[in-house]
């Protein structure tokens, strides 16, 4: 469904060029969740921006359904790391924004947005402004905005980093269900090894900048666990955790030495 094929990317500044991604390849099939994990600043957000068409790779191709990405693709939805709810729109107007941009008529699109909000625990908040919602509810509203356009490919950039542990598990569960139910492809960027292991079918570990694919792990927990919360208790989870931790090459000793 979504494929990164031999991607390289550099930022060209005035004085220097920063090489961010180097010959990086991996894919995400239909009905598959891929977690991308890597050191801070290695280029994960940049990688997603290549799939959205906001940036073009310096070399290589991003393919959706075998066709190279060229600008915004209607089959693709993205949930940004930062909040992208428009503060001057009510929550329901934010949720229906994608449909509005596509020129859908007001009646049907409003109905869809309201139905989604009912389904995901935001009923009664339709007319509120985003600032009147809790952080978790805002994230959920942003997610619904992305879902409203029914994307086949979903990109999530550290979507749950700012949430408390309970809300987080609930939304993680929702997201996994949504992905499976719609047979979508989902790429989720995260710093959290547990999150990667409990949500994804495959975990792609990136190296430091310039980022290359260091390891790819096929993991069973997301499909086998009843819910995201149960995954960490499954046999083998700790093992994978350790292996990914080692692959990430986080040198705590080195940090102490530097400090």
């Amino acid at each position, binding site marked *: 469904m979504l494929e990164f094929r031999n991607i390289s990317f550099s930022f060209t500044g005035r004085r220097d060029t920063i090489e961010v991604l180097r010959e990086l390849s991996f894919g995400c099939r239909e009905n598959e969740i891929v977690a991308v994990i890597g050191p801070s600043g290695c280029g994960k957000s940049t990688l997603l921006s290549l799939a959205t068409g906001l940036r073009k790779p310096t070399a290589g191709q991003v393919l959706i359904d075998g066709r190279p990405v060229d600008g915004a693709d209607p089959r693709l939805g993205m949930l940004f790391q930062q909040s992208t709810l428009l503060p001057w729109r009510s929550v329901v107007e934010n949720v229906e924004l994608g449909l509005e941009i596509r020129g859908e008529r007001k009646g049907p699109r409003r109905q869809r947005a309201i139905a989604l909000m009912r389904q995901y625990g935001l009923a009664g908040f339709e007319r509120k*402004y985003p600032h009147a919602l809790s952080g978790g509810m805002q994230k959920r509203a942003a997610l619904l905005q992305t879902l409203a*356009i029914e994307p086949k490919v979903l990109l999530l950039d550290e979507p749950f980093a700012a949430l408390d542990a309970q809300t987080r598990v609930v939304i993680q569960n929702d997201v996994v269900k949504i992905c499976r139910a719609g047979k979508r492809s989902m790429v989720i960027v995260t710093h959290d090894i547990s999150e990667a292991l409990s949500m994804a079918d495959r975990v792609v570990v990136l190296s430091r900048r310039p980022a290359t694919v260091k390891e790819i792990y096929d993991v069973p927990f997301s499909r086998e666990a009843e819910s995201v919360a149960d995954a960490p208790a499954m046999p083998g989870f700790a093992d994978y955790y350790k292996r990914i931790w080692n692959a990430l090459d986080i040198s705590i000793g080195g940090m102490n030495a530097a400090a």
Partner: protein
Amino acid sequence: MKNIVKQRLLVNCGRLLVLVVILGGTELGIRYGVLSRLFFSSPSEIFVAFEAQWAKGSFLPDLGITVFETLLGLAAGSLAGMAVGLLLPQLRLVSHVIEPFLMVLNGIPVIVIAPLFILWLGLGLASKVGISIYIVFFAMFIPVYTSSLRLDRTLVDALRVMGATRAQIFWKVVVPSSMPSVYTGLKIGSGLALIGAVIGEFVASRAGLGHMILYASGTLDTPSLYLGIIAIAIFAALLSLTVDALGPLLVPYRFSDEK
């Protein structure tokens, strides 16, 4: 609850007291020769001056002219400042070319440029409206321009990923996110619009409150001078209240939780 009511009552009584002291003080001070008639006027003298101006049939026209110049200057200057402030950042090249010119123009004190407007537009209303537009323009242009330059890129990126056109981004993100700055511009502009109109009348005019004040000052008619000042003060206060009341219309999400 009771305390708040009590406190409010106390504050209002205090305000009334201050007013009574000022009015009574000047009234008595003038009557008993403590205050000079050349420098001060008692409320009763000012009222007599008001009756005289009214009888002459010049008070209402003077007031009306200044109000008209101010409101027209405010409306036209704000619209122009908004339009240029919003559109200029969309045209990178043009904006780079003309930015220094606008900044230099903005630096010229209005009093210095006023005679030029009189020369161009004559002694009548047009020159005053012109001066008013000129300063209001910058009061609106500068905050709107800087806010559109500092537009939140993530919001724009989010809309682009959803497939929004440039026009959709302009109307759905650029314009609404400038509204707080428009509100700021209106607040500053409303004061400046009045200054512009009166300065124009000071430089050269046949009517208006500025003209009345200047004439009173020239003929040592102190009560009429005060009358002019008081009329302008009341108008300025009403204008400022009106502009404040526009806040909930321009930036409703800053004033309420619900749309």
